[in-house]
């Protein structure tokens, strides 16, 4: 009955394409969101209509959405063939989905990054084959307030909804709570570096106890709420890389262009999602190894004449991953903080980040909220300079450091990262 896109949906898709085209011509950027909005005005059900009859995967969670979406899209493209439709720009609300679908092919797999708040509605309307649930932690508290409320909304949505294969991070108690009443769940040990939002048991309120640093030993609460049995998990390999280990005995090397344990965990989640959509985990991981950089993250480019590695961290959980990655090195570090609407207007989360790990390095604070950061660094015991302009900050860091071998490590939050990315060559 819904096998073909209706006339109305086709008209809406054309409207979205036309608006995108016009907006690009007018120099309004890629225009994706504007086009998507126009398409949704013509047909509010545009997104679901363009997904009918296709394998659809949704990816959500506080951190790692964009990367996991790109990895999964790469795996499905290699394994299933045909053009994969995906919202690669990170526009993860319905208008962004409409735009990506309208601009892409009408058949073949769909992989969408979904804002956490929109996930329940999209799971209900799109009836996806699978949904990847990465993690839940504090992010933009001035806008979304309570992360537990979000976990509860997910739980309700997955309890009674259409059958969907959930690929869920079993190391995050809030994710386990969210997916706990669903019919089909693949529990994955993807790790959890930041735990401050997970210590209170979502079931009874008592304190959750974690066995060790990366959750390999699991977690439990006195009420019996505990980490479920794993279908797959990561193990450290002798060479510093990671192995994807499966309960059925398979062990696959996870070797990515993208750095960091957290990205290898994202790849494991994507590999299990790919399996649920008919692409073997080994083939999926092989394809993911080819993904060079995602939406500019971890790009090494030249800023003001200095080679610079560009990284994005939006919240304490993201920061704990990146401090893990750059910690122990000696390269100069530039930290850029803005507090625009897309970043969240309250940067008090800076005090949840363990900047103490940067002590002894050349550190430069920059961005529109450089002064908040400078005060935070002062109390963290991290010597630093404050340079308002981010490009000047990179140049200053390279000069101050006096070394040319290692690229400057630039870590910015959302708009600070994207502003600098536009200047990278």
């Amino acid at each position, binding site marked *: 009955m819904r096998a073909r896109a209706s006339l109305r949906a086709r008209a809406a898709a054309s409207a979205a394409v036309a608006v995108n085209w016009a907006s690009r011509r007018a120099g309004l950027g890629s225009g994706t969101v504007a086009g998507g909005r126009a398409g949704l005005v013509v047909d509010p059900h545009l997104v679901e209509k363009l997904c009918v009859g296709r394998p659809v995967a949704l990816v959500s969670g506080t951190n790692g959405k964009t990367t996991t979406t790109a990895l999964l899209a790469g795996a499905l493209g290699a394994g299933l063939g045909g053009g994969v439709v995906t919202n690669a720009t990170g526009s993860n609300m319905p208008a962004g989905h409409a735009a990506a679908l309208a601009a892409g092919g009408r058949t073949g797999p769909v992989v969408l990054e979904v804002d956490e708040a929109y996930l329940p509605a999209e799971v209900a309307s799109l009836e996806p084959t699978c949904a990847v649930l990465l993690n839940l932690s*504090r992010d933009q*508290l*001035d806008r979304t*307030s*309570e*992360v*537990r409320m979000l976990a509860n909304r997910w739980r309700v949505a997955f309890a009674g909804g259409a059958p969907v294969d959930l690929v869920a991070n079993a190391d995050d108690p809030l994710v386990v709570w969210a997916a706990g009443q669903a019919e089909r769940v693949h529990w994955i040990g993807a790790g959890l570096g930041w735990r*401050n939002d997970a*210590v*209170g048991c979502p079931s009874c*309120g*008592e*304190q959750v106890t974690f066995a060790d640093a990366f959750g390999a030993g699991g977690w439990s609460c006195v009420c019996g709420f505990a980490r479920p049995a794993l279908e797959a998990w990561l193990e450290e390999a002798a060479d510093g890389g990671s192995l994807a280990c499966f309960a059925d005995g398979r062990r696959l090397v996870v070797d990515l262009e993208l750095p960091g344990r957290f990205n290898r965990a994202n790849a494991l989640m994507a590999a299990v999602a790919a399996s649920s959509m008919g692409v073997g985990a080994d083939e999926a991981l092989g394809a993911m190894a080819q993904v060079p950089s995602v939406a500019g993250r971890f790009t090494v480019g030249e800023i003001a004449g200095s080679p610079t590695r560009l990284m994005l961290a939006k919240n304490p959980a993201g920061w704990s991953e990146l401090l893990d990655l750059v910690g122990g090195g000696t390269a100069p570090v530039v930290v850029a903080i803005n507090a625009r609407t897309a970043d969240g*207007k*309250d940067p*008090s*989360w*800076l*005090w*949840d980040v363990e900047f103490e790990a940067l002590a002894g390095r050349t550190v430069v604070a920059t961005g529109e909220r450089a*002064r*908040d950061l*400078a*005060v*935070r660094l*002062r*109390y963290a*015991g991290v010597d630093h300079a*404050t340079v308002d302009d981010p490009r000047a900050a990179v140049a200053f860091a390279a000069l101050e450091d006096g070394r040319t071998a290692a690229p400057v490590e630039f870590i910015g939050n959302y708009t600070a990262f994207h502003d600098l990315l536009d200047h990278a060559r």
Partner: protein
Amino acid sequence: MSTGLRIVVVYPDLLGTYGDGGNGLVLARRAEWRGIKASLHQALSADPVPMGDLYCLGGGEDGPQVRAAAALRQDGTLVGAVERGAAVLAVCAGFQIVGTTFPDANGSGRAGLGLLDVSTVKGTGPRAVGEVVADITAAGAGPLPTLSGFENHAGVTRVGPGAEPLATVRRGIGNGGGDASEGAVAGKVLGTYLHGPVLARNPALADLLLGWATGGQLVPLDDHEEAALRQERLAVGRRSPSGMARTRRRISRALRR
């Protein structure tokens, strides 16, 4: 138990939503920089609250706030310490907890610790979220520079006769009762809705608390980075004058009539 100034961050696992743990760090560092021996304890909710000279309570979500209040009442150490002269900084959910009553997620009143004569009910308007600029009015806080911070709360707090409002908002909502008051103070217990965290943005407030806890005179520190941050934040407060806050207050007053 260690000697020197004992600073206790109370239940960071329940009351640490808005970077409020930073307040404890600011106090400890500012003591150390002056050569005052200080120790910083993170008191998790599963453990007994340690004896301290200066306690910090932060913001938290509804459920954890109810648990924190119940645990602190049962534990009793904090209330006993205040009776023996310990100082308290209570922020946001912590501010509500040290009062007499506060609302749970359903809006029902829960018993607070009664350390500060304030009572909180669920607000009916939109959540108070945004930058705050407030002038100190409390005699008990002495002369202090203008307060700068960020608020994010739904509660409306009334200050009773046993306490005095800490400040008057020039920008922002504060206690939300229509009188433009923000925070409250009585003796050595000080409550506020401001995070930022509040002591990082207002080092003079940190020093007021340190003075209460040590009973001594404090040498000034080089706070030029805090000064630069304050200048920037206070300028933002001036750029959008109090008109909006005033209008909101007028509307909320009219609605209550």
